């Protein structure tokens, strides 16, 4: 079947309109805090509305969305969303270079949390809110959200859902994909509300609380403070955020099952045990290393900062309560390794995801077993159910492609003269949607100093990482576009 460019254009238009509406929300904060930025949101929203409206009006949609169209719709809308989301930063003059604004915006939507800003507070409340809000939208996926709200996306919604939701296999909680999307977003909204409330109880202002809740549940890490969570120096806030970071790294369908009274699903999940196990073991290791190298005065401080840093890095949130760039090399390399892992499939985290790591580990073990028993028949099981061979194949393919993308991006970044630690870690931190890295891009530094081409590569890394490689990479494959035609316009005859 020919690629339905009409469908792609029309749906892209609808999603732009959807985001234009979202751009109106920060205006409330702008008026309340009287920072004068409201007009830039109005202009940005109007631009988005005109572009989106024009696209959706002029393109004639096909009756069905195939999976090929799904990739293009999701891929292009993410690129376009970041472009639209960058406008307020650029128009207000807070970020003078559009490339930097685009970087900041993409870092928001992909929940990376890497920033090019020296002093975050300089943005003003409404832009800071928008920054956190983009993360929240990107965390569970704004396309999944629009599936839940917009009836227009009903057809072929599964294709879009598949292309946006992370994880090797997708849970379906309800027979209709719209209901599944609605359930996931409801859980997400509920958790955000609860965290906002708890943070306010711990002493944050409503503005700080909601921004941090947005960035925690999305595992984004855009704090409205330059010093991130360290700015508060409040152990209760640390604790609340750690708990919600851990929760955000768990598959949201599990949360839903738990909330509907199905406790057993939580206990049965092998991936959950693996995820918690890795987090706890590395926390202990990093804590012991910090005690050994006497980074902190007391072991309690070591425990507090190590726990926070391990979980925030593992889930790809990227908040910081300590400048881990000053920690011992053993701790730093542990944290960099953790960056690749991510949380569970179906969570809002970045990275490879625990499910893939776990199945890869099982696959490796079985290869060794096959060497000992050449005639043995083996099967890989997750939660006592057999994992189909094609899922294993796709995971192996995923990991190889991941390595290739990583190597190429690192080559380009370091090829521009960026030092090896900064270059490598910046790619790792953006590809896995972490945010802060080491050395030049460490928690107390920012990405502004990198060359422009490197920033462009890192922007691609972020979106490729968030949409799990294939959705974006397929758009660069020539055969994907082989039979592409001009879309059918509304005004064209027949």
């Amino acid at each position, binding site marked *: 079947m020919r690629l339905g460019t009409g469908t792609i254009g029309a749906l892209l238009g609808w999603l732009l309109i959807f985001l234009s509406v979202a751009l109106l929300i920060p205006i409330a904060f702008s008026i309340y805090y009287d920072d004068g930025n409201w007009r830039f949101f109005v202009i940005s929203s109007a631009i988005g509305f005109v572009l989106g409206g024009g696209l959706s009006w002029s393109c004639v949609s096909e009756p069905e969305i195939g999976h090929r169209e799904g990739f293009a719709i999701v891929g292009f809308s993410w690129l376009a969303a970041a472009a639209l989301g960058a406008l307020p930063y650029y128009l207000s003059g807070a970020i003078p270079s559009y490339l930097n604004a685009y970087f900041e915006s993409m870092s928001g939507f992909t929940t990376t949390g890497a920033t090019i800003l020296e002093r975050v507070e300089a943005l003003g409340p409404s832009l800071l809110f928008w920054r956190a809000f983009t993360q929240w939208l990107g965390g569970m996926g704004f396309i999944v959200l629009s599936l839940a709200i917009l009836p227009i996306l009903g057809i072929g919604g599964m294709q879009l859902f598949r292309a946006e939701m992370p994880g090797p296999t997708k849970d379906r909680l309800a027979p209709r994909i719209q209901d599944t999307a609605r359930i996931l977003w409801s859980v997400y909204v509920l958790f955000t509300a609860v965290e906002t409330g708890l943070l306010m109880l711990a002493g944050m202002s409503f503005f700080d609380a909601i921004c941090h809740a947005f960035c925690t549940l999305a595992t984004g890490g855009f704090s409205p403070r330059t010093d991130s969570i360290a700015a508060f120096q409040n152990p209760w806030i640390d604790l609340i955020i750690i708990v919600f970071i851990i929760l955000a790294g768990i598959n949201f369908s599990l949360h839903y099952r738990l909330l509907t009274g199905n406790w057993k699903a939580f206990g049965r999940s092998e991936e959950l045990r693996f995820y918690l196990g890795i987090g706890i073991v590395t926390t202990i290791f990093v804590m012991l290393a910090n005690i050994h190298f006497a980074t902190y005065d007391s072991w309690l401080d070591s425990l507090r900062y190590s726990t926070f840093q391990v979980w925030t890095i593992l889930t790809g949130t990227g908040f910081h309560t300590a400048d881990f760039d000053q920690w011992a090399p053993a701790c730093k390399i542990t944290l960099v390794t953790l960056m690749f892992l991510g949380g569970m499939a179906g969570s809002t985290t970045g990275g490879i995801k625990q499910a893939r790591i776990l199945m890869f580990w099982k696959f490796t073990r079985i290869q060794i077993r096959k060497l000992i*028993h050449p*005639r*043995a028949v083996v099967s890989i099981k997750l939660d006592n159910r057999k994992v189909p061979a094609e899922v294993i194949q796709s995971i192996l393919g995923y990991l190889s492609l991941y390595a290739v993308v990583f190597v190429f991006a690192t080559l380009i970044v370091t090829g521009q003269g960026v030092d090896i630690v900064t270059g490598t870690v910046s790619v790792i931190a953006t590809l896995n949607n972490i945010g802060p890295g080491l050395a030049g891009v460490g928690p107390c530094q920012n990405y502004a100093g990198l060359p422009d081409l490197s920033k462009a590569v890192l922007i691609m890394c972020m979106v490729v990482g968030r949409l799990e490689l294939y959705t974006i990479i397929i758009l660069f494959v020539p055969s994907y576009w082989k039979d592409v035609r001009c879309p059918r316009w509304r005004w064209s005859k027949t």
Partner: protein
Amino acid sequence: MRVVVIGAGEVGRHICQQLSVENHEVILIDRDADRLKRAKRDLNILAIEGNGASAQILEQANITKADLFIAVTDIDEVNLIACIMAKEYGVLRRVARVRNVEYFSGASPLNEHRLGIDLLINPDQVMAQEILRISEMSEAFEVVDFAHGEVVLVGYQIKEGNPVCGITLADQKDLRGLYDFVIVAIVRDEETIIPGGSDLIRAEDRIYLVVRRRDMAAVEELFNLWSMAPKKVFIIGGGQVGFRVAKALEQRKVDVALVETDSIRCEHLAEHLSSAVVLNFDGLDAHDLLSEGIDTADLVVAVTDGDTTNILSSLLAKYHGAKKCITRISRPDFIPLLGKLGIDVALSPRLVAANMILRFVRRGAILSVATLLGSDAEVVELVVSERWAHVDKPLRSIGFPADTNLGAVVRQGKVIIPSGDTVLKAGDRLIIFSMKKAIPTVEQLLTS
């Protein structure tokens, strides 16, 4: 008792034979005239040709007067329907053989209670249970539980050079020390002896002991036998029986290798087993078996559908040094022969199923029964009733019939290994070893 049996296969025939020997009225129904003719010729029963699930045929068998209905045809659905009909006709107890596991699940709305079936028997499941029970001990060739497993009957093969050879049972008693046991039967040259004090144990004898389960280890040491649960088990044949055995052994942390020829079946097995190694090759492929280490196996269980494969692979394993083998054989006539060949335990799934049914049927005064495979002796469990003439009298004053031996007395959950001074009380459960022909005499004695 009037018994209606449908299905004249191995199981049906075996049940008919046992019940008719015990003087019950047996009516056998089958669709195959040939099989019926054979059964009629060999057994003292009434045979009716026809469909066991047909009302007309059942009425012809005078089913309303029957006390027991046993459905053991090869077709599950026929057995189930026949049992439902038997219930409508007012038969008191109904037994059905059902192969399909899905009918068994407690979750199904059509479980055995709803269908009004007293005993549902799955031959594969019963077979697997039997294999597991025997596998617990590597030296014993037979283990039967009594009194809820507190007392066991164990069968051992006495090998050349064992210190107990040539000692009379009376002398044995002096050796036994703290532990009570009774040697209740000796099988020598396919002849069963219910021994007295003057009988000798000889090499190549098979002896049957009654012993408390907790004393078993000590008694085995006394007999210079080592019974250890197997650590490494090879299962040849990944059918229902092989799978069930593998699954159970795997949970006991035993090293299990399961060999199956069908690669699709292997996939299924690998999916449902965790630590067991599923191997895809032929059970007769000596090279592959050896490279997987069958020579070091503690136990080899050959349970493919083919008797030849089972026998040959067992022999191969034994030849290369496997410690013990359990072999499934569908023709029970060959069982005595296999012992001669060096196969430790041969089990016929049909006989195992038939024994299970008989055990159920005789429930009542007789609580459980095991037929000692390959011998003429039987073990019966009987309860002493209050009205019995010999209550409260010492054993020596009761004239126990010849060819019977009282193995154990269970009183209020405690086990007594009896001597001449033991006094029997009402409610005691007696475990009696007897030659088949002596069973009616024993029953008579106990009901007098």
